[in-house]
């Protein structure tokens, strides 16, 4: 029994269900209450659960993220919304030095049932300060989990799993996905939070991606299929940990790896994906693993340049062709 939901609705349902079944769940952030959330994720919850469980905050990202940490220490299950990931730079001490380290520093005394949701990525002409990605920063932090849903179904599953988890989980949501519809089965049993999904099977190359880029990768694979290039598309769903086994099994079959990411190429998430898979699968590989990734520049405001600064479907197609030695004649 599925229904069609947009991503924000799927997240809204997940929050609602968790809040109704567990009184220790509460959410806070800027304009999550009366306003219903910038991307509508918390719509209606304020009226249903009251201001203490759906709390509008001042503009104090470091402070209210740290507040989430403190509340989690007492066994509450806070869901902190950082209005957009760009403001998370003000909250990294709370995330990295507190949430990720307290459980360890206390010798394992304290679980950290904290969820931090942040919309991010390049949207539409929001300019350099509002087009950020932070996956590379968070991935390097031991003690954090990072979920990167690309579909409403995954958004629903992973938010519920994140809330139920005793570990700190960062949910990286992509701003361009909120109003994308998809089929959601609210009752289905979810796969483990960090299990990768094979979106399409193929034998010629493995296309690894996540978040919005996973959808572009799937579109690229459709186009490639027309020319008989069969790409296997893997949506990682989680950047920490990464489901290496699924990737390695695919490479064993395809012998070629292409990573598509919106993040800047230099030291982005793709670097880790390639480094580890190369280590694990070196003798399986027929060509150097390649990356399609964002340019090494802050995001320009102008629309054409903005679009040119991150990969599109055609860039993925082009890179895939090059990788399998089937570049179109000029």
């Amino acid at each position: 029994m599925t229904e069609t939901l947009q991503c924000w609705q799927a997240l809204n349902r997940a929050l609602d269900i968790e809040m109704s079944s567990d009184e220790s769940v509460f959410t806070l952030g800027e304009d999550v209450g009366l306003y219903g959330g910038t991307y509508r994720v918390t719509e209606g919850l304020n009226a249903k659960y009251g201001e203490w469980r759906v709390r509008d905050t001042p503009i104090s990202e470091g402070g209210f993220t740290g507040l989430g940490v403190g509340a989690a220490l007492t066994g509450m299950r806070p869901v902190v919304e950082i209005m957009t990931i760009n403001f998370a730079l003000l909250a990294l001490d709370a995330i990295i030095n507190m949430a990720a380290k307290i459980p360890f520093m206390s010798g394992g005394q304290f679980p950290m049932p904290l969820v931090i949701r942040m919309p991010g990525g390049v949207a539409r002409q929001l300019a350099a300060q509002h087009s950020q990605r932070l996956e590379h920063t968070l991935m390097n932090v031991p003690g954090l989990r990072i979920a990167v849903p690309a579909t409403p179904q995954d958004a629903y599953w992973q938010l519920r799993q994140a809330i139920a988890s005793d570990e700190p989980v960062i949910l990286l949501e992509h701003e361009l996905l909120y109003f994308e519809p998809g089929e959601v089965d609210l009752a289905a049993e979810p796969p483990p939070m960090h299990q990768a999904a094979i979106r399409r099977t193929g034998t010629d190359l493995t296309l690894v991606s996540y978040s919005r880029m996973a959808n572009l990768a799937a579109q690229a694979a459709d186009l490639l299929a027309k020319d008989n290039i069969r790409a296997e598309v893997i949506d990682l769903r989680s950047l920490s940990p990464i489901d290496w086994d699924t990737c390695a099994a695919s490479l064993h079959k395809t012998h070629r790896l292409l990573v598509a990411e919106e993040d800047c190429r230099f030291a982005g998430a793709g670097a880790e994906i390639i480094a580890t898979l190369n280590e694990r699968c070196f003798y399986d590989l027929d060509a150097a693993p390649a990356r399609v990734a964002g340019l090494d520049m802050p995001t320009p405001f102008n629309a054409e340049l903005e679009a040119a600064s991150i990969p599109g479907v055609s860039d993925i197609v082009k890179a895939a062709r090059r990788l399998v030695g089937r570049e179109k004649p000029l």
Partner: protein
Amino acid sequence: MDRETLHRFLHDMLLARAFEERAAQEYSEGNIAGFLHLYPGEEAVAVGVIHATEPGDYIATTYREHVHALVRGIPPRQVMAELFGRRDGVCKGMGGSMHLFDRERRFMGGYAIVGETFPVATGIAYSIALRQLPEAVICFFGDGAVNQGTFHEALNMASLWKLPVLFVCENNHYQIGTEIHRHSAVVNVYKRACAYNIPAEKVNGMDVINVYEATRHALTQIRAGNGPQLLEFETYRFRGHSMADAGSYRPRVEVNSQTGRDPVETVIHEAKLGYPTQAEIAAAGPDLVEQLVGHSAAVGHFDDRHIEAVRDEVKRIVDDAAQFALSSPPPTMDDAWSSLYCNRQHETLTGAA
């Protein structure tokens, strides 16, 4: 108030209003995209404050800064072209609406991360003080920005080292959808300054002459070496927070979220917490631009003809700016790469591309 000054206020207020309304129209027509935060209702603050500055002074401001840029003297053409993301924009289309910079005019940026203007302004002021120059910095910020840690850190340092900075709060009572009573433990922003021994005052921000006088007074103190000052201007934004926020959410979201509540409570809530209705805006007093027009006539400086001529002039300026922006080419990728001072992509040790 002399005639010339009043004329400049009038001109800039009318230009500000016309420019912003035109920007809204261009947004609706798809010529401007992204976040667009407009200033109608708050014009008296930028006009009054910036007219009280000297050319050697610096301005640091927020994403809601088109009017500040215009009043500071950046040609409307270049501001509009930047909003359009074009090559002839003041930042070549790299920054856009929220990030106007003009080095020549010491317009040190629009910042889109709330609270960034505090440390930037403090740093500029530090460099003035270190060199013992007679300049000052104006640091603009909203009522919501006051709760950011950078406010606290910057005000402490500015006061500790007696830096020449004027902190200017544009208190429009809203942090997007959150009314000041719900984001701040102290709703009189100027009272926050007591924690740093910074002289502060609340001023009516709907009257440009008031704003101008208060700013001049504060700047005199600052230039005398007495350290920072803070001015809170009470003002009101007539539009939504940004164009993404054209008011439609209030019936849709807020009213939905009230469903199931006691209707009496709902009314109380709406009155206390909702976005301004047109009635509330009207209740805030006569429109500040028209008020100034009235004043100008009343003091006998200008007759109706003069005022109409100014209205026509600013319309021409805005039309011209929009025309200019529309015909300006987009920037190229080369423009982008060459805007980067530090450029890994195009650089090798040998200097080859």
